[in-house]
């Protein structure tokens, strides 16, 4: 806690190297341990009690200390998110959690982006159409975003115009909302990485404000 956390975060894993084999299993129980099911349900409880948006929920996981994020399982992420949001919204205190748990209860770091005061008007009409060439803005916002690092600054082609949805970068940091069209953009893997594999198209779904005309 207490560090300034920028959001080129550890969760943004697309294209990172060195992870090795996938721990693949063709079948496994939905929950391997009872605590996983409880942790998942408690997140639903907290999110419902304090009306957490999808962006705020995801950001509460992304703010985990990077070492903790990489060495803990998915449901420990959900537990950490549930506890962090419960503390931040005043449902429980950190000291109560640690007293009950009988030890340290790691929470996610603080969100240091203030709520956006003026989010601007909704964008009702798509700026781009299927077939348009677009470039992803080279942005590094100090908060939540759904723009993966591996496509920033890259050129692609719009292949689908989707619905109009609340911008996660805004909804993660307060009660204000701005809605924008979303798109699926196709990238040639060879344009994303020098060692990009041939015959591979990678599609990334983005909000309107992440894009500019190429």
């Amino acid at each position, binding site marked *: 806690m207490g560090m300034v956390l920028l959001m080129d975060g550890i969760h*943004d*894993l*697309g*294209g990172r*190297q060195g*992870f*090795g084999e*996938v*721990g*693949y*299993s*063709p*079948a496994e*129980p*939905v*929950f391997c*341990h*009872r*605590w996983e*099911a*409880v*942790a998942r*349900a*408690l997140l*639903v*409880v907290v999110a419902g*009690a304090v009306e957490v948006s999808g962006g705020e929920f*995801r950001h509460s*996981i992304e703010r985990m200390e990077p070492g903790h994020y990489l060495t*803990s399982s*998915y449901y420990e992420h959900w537990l950490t998110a549930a*506890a962090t949001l*419960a503390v931040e919204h005043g*449902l*429980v205190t950190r000291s109560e*959690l*640690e007293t*009950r*748990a*009988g*030890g340290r209860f790691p929470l996610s770091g603080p969100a240091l982006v203030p709520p956006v005061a003026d989010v601007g008007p909704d964008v009702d009409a798509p700026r781009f159409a299927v077939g348009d060439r677009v470039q992803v803005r080279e942005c590094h916002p100090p908060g939540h975003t*759904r*723009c*993966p690092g*591996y496509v920033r600054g890259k050129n692609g082609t719009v292949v689908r115009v*989707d*619905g109009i*949805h609340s911008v996660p970068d805004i909804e993660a940091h307060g009660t204000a909302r701005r809605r924008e069209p*979303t798109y699926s953009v196709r990238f040639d*893997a060879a344009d994303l*990485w020098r*060692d990009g*594999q041939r*015959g*591979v*198209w*990678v*599609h*990334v*779904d983005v909000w309107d404000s992440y894009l500019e005309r190429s």
Partner: protein
Amino acid sequence: MSAEGHHPAPVSPVEQRVAALEALLTERGLVPPGFIEEITRRYESEIGPMNGAKVVARSWVDPQYKQRLLADGTAAIAELGFGGPEGDHMVVVENTPGIHNVIVCTLCSCYPWPVLGLPPAWYKDPPYRARMVREPRTLLAEMGCPLPDDAEIRVWDSSAEVRYLVLPERPPGTGGLTEAELTSLVTRDSMIGTARL
């Protein structure tokens, strides 16, 4: 889940933390009686890849349904009674002899819950999320799904509101099977795109 209680295992730190949060939220009246059991039961027995398999098998036997499925996945999937959280904006992507589709979520673990259930652990772990966008040909081969060199691979990173379902090709030699028999052939991984049938 194992039948704990008869031989209680030592309680791990993460279990202690879950128990602490559960107790505090329950004391504040925020956890309705039976809520945890009910939501768990639903994801363990009602929502899973058996739902997606029905969608796929229907599309194999009913060309008009397939057309609707590819045009508006959400509506066509709702025809079979499936929908809800993480399934409100469905896009179905079709495999063909020369095109292979695969889904991933590099930023978190987005997955089409109503048709595939909750994602498997490997889908949520860093290696799959890091590698599927950068070296899908290599990773698919490693996972038991090698593709011809000239096959086009389409990777779909679920980074906004759409959730994807891969429509696998109908296996050869299944012309005489009923829709129910076809349903039993469709695997979870074939609908993620890490396997072919």
